[in-house]
């Protein structure tokens, strides 16, 4: 408060916070209201670009899961996987685990196809979002709702 510059610098964080807030809103995926942490994680993955909901990306996961400790999930993107047009990366995000990230995979034209499978842990019934990064700078998005009857023991 004693510094002569403090009134000016004092307004900066406020402006930044407002701008950051607007930016976050603008970056949120086009779907329904998603928890902020997932939206932020997706924005970090896309570098701020808004992913497009697309039929070219499929997120294959059971819609009803008995055991959230091990849920099979496959993400595939319809892509020629050539030097000119390929998938650079695939990531999976969740809304209601303690952390929004599940996996991020990097691939390239040498992959031949854009398809990964793994097994996830889900702490609760929730929506999952898969995002693919394309070589032309676009990002594609697919979503799936999963109902979990026995949650993964993430929080005791």
């Amino acid at each position, binding site marked *: 408060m004693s510094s002569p510059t403090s009134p000016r610098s004092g307004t900066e964080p406020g402006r930044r916070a407002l701008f950051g807030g607007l930016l976050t809103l603008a970056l949120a995926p086009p779907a329904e209201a998603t928890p902020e942490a997932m939206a932020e994680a997706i924005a970090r993955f896309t570098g701020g670009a808004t992913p497009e909901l697309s039929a070219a990306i499929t997120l294959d996961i059971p819609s009803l899961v008995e055991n959230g400790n091990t849920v099979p999930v496959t993400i595939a993107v319809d892509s020629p996987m050539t030097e000119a047009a390929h998938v650079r990366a695939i990531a999976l995000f969740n809304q209601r685990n303690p952390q929004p*990230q599940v996996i*991020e*995979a990097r691939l390239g034209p040498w992959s*031949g*196809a854009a398809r990964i499978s793994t097994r996830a*842990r889900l702490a609760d019934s929730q929506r999952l979002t898969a995002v693919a990064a394309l070589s032309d700078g676009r990002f594609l998005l697919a979503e799936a709702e999963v109902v979990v009857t026995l949650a993964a023991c993430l929080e005791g």
Partner: protein
Amino acid sequence: MARTLIRVPATATRGEVIEIRTLIQHPMETGYRPDAAGRLLVRDIITRFTCHFDNRLVFEAMLHSAIAANPYLTFTLRAEASGVLTFAWEGDHDFRHVETRALTVT
């Protein structure tokens, strides 16, 4: 030593897209689970998986606590030439495990 299961086709024709399946024995302790006394168990997960084909990185995945125990991962590769696939898992507490498999392209 962690046990692993790796499935790579023994042979592939040139240009064929092969699927590689990997699994490694690992608890993937999330860091969010309390023990009997209520203290959080320290996180112990694999954070990174890589696959190199003759020293060239062909697949990489960053894993988080939301990956199930004994991480299973499949991915694809276009078989262009015979060579050696090197699989590496790295994680908390200096975990590191490396396996190699030969790929024969006809």
